């Protein structure tokens, strides 16, 4: 029974994704609402992304410093931190924060709209709720995650600089030079692609769980829960797949 249900869920999420692409590329387009959603996503996540990235930069630098110092390679600290932040930490932290913050928000919001018949009300008034509610959120999260990741990388590197500066008293210009020489275009580009995939996964999973919720308030809670847990799981899966792929490219 569980396997059957899992297969039905896979088929239904597959249909949901197909519906997403079909609706996204057919008029009328929802440019205005996509911008609203982009603003909402940026606005909701900015504080948490700033806070966590800054701390991550500090903590990672502080933890790496003794190991490098024991090999007399403390000067490599900016290089090590920048590669770790841009390649992995930045996208991962931003993805997980957004999965928690945006995923629960989308899942609960759409779930609540579903059980209170607001989605049906849109449907019967001739509005395409899938386009208005789902496409806009998924496109916005796909577009905004890379921007948030760039921002998070910057903030994490600032946090890291504070620690590097406290250890070695090196200047900001030197730090930036070391960071910029150790990061390649491939690092930045792959990080953006990864972030976009994270955003897409968060959007599609959260909207799917909300849009298909039932069972009243219990269903809404379940939708929010599935949105967060499944989004986080998929973030790690995507991260692993991207890592394998990039290792082949490098």
């Amino acid at each position, binding site marked *: 029974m569980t396997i059957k249900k899992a297969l039905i869920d896979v088929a239904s999420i597959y249909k949901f994704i197909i519906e997403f692409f079909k609706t996204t590329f057919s008029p009328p387009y929802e440019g205005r609402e996509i911008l609203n959603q982009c603003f909402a996503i940026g606005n909701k996540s900015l504080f948490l992304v700033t806070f966590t990235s800054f701390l991550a930069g500090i903590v990672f630098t502080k933890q790496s410093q003794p190991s490098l110092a024991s090999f007399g390679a403390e000067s490599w600290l900016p290089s090590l931190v920048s590669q770790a932040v841009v390649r992995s930490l930045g996208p991962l932290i931003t993805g997980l924060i957004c999965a928690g913050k945006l995923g629960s928000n989308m899942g609960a919001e759409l779930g609540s709209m579903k059980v209170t018949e*607001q989605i*049906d009300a*849109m449907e019967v*008034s*001739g509005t395409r709720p899938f386009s208005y509610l789902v496409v806009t959120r998924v496109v916005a999260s796909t577009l905004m995650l890379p921007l948030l990741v760039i921002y998070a990388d910057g903030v994490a590197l600032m946090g890291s600089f504070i620690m590097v500066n406290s250890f070695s008293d090196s200047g900001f210009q030197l730090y930036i030079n070391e960071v910029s020489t150790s990061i390649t275009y491939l690092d930045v580009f792959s990080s953006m692609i990864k972030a976009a995939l994270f955003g897409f996964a968060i959007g599609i999973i959260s909207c799917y769980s909300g849009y298909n919720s039932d069972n009243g308030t219990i269903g809404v809670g379940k939708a929010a829960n599935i949105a967060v847990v499944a989004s986080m799981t998929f973030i790690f899966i995507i991260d692993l797949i991207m890592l394998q792929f990039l290792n082949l490219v490098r």
Partner: protein
Amino acid sequence: MVTLTTNHTTGVPSSLTKVVEIKNLKKSFNDRVVLNNVNLDLYERENLAVLGRSGSGKSVLIKCMVGLLRADEGDIQVLGYDVSSLSAKKLIELRLQVGFSFQGSALYDSMTVRQNLEFPLKRNLGIYDRDQLDEIVMTSLKEVGLERAIDQRPDELSGGMKKRIGIARTLILKPKIMLYDEPTSGLDPQTSEEINELILQVRDQYHTASIIITHDVSCARQVSDRVVALIDGESKLEGTFEELEAANDSNLKHFFNY
């Protein structure tokens, strides 16, 4: 179905044409048959009450009419459209002519009353001019007597106010048919009376044909030109309210012995 009157349009002029025609409708959820052999006609400018107990499939019936649910068998003709075979585009075309007032009002709770009413205007009619939007929204709110609620959020409104705003949002697109799902459920008698009067006012002012889904006998009595009794998912009796009341049918006794 037993027809208790020889004239289907009792209470409305006989020259009026059918706007809804449902034949042998059947709908099941898994193994549970919810609607079976439902037959129903609605004429223009007529208020038809569908009376039945909770769980008798009344809401499923009107959801099938607007394509929210797909019927298993039978024909549903609404304004000349065969609902079961409509393309997505045609379905939208039909839905723009049919207003649906939900049992729980279904107001968009992230929007104010103004935004709720503007939503269909912007989305369906492409009206974005501020003055024009304000004028249409205020006119609609005046018609339901709730101008003062324009900037309130749905969670600040009472049940009766929500119902009125829901009806106003539906009427803003000037539909030809109105479907009311339990318009008076959960309301006190006085507010129910006001909603009933509003339903009659809508018919007279907008010349709409309406189907009122209800288990509230006083609502059916007050607003209906004709009543169809839905018993165990089947349309069993049809006639004016007085005719149904006089029929002394065993299935309807619990409705009229109140």
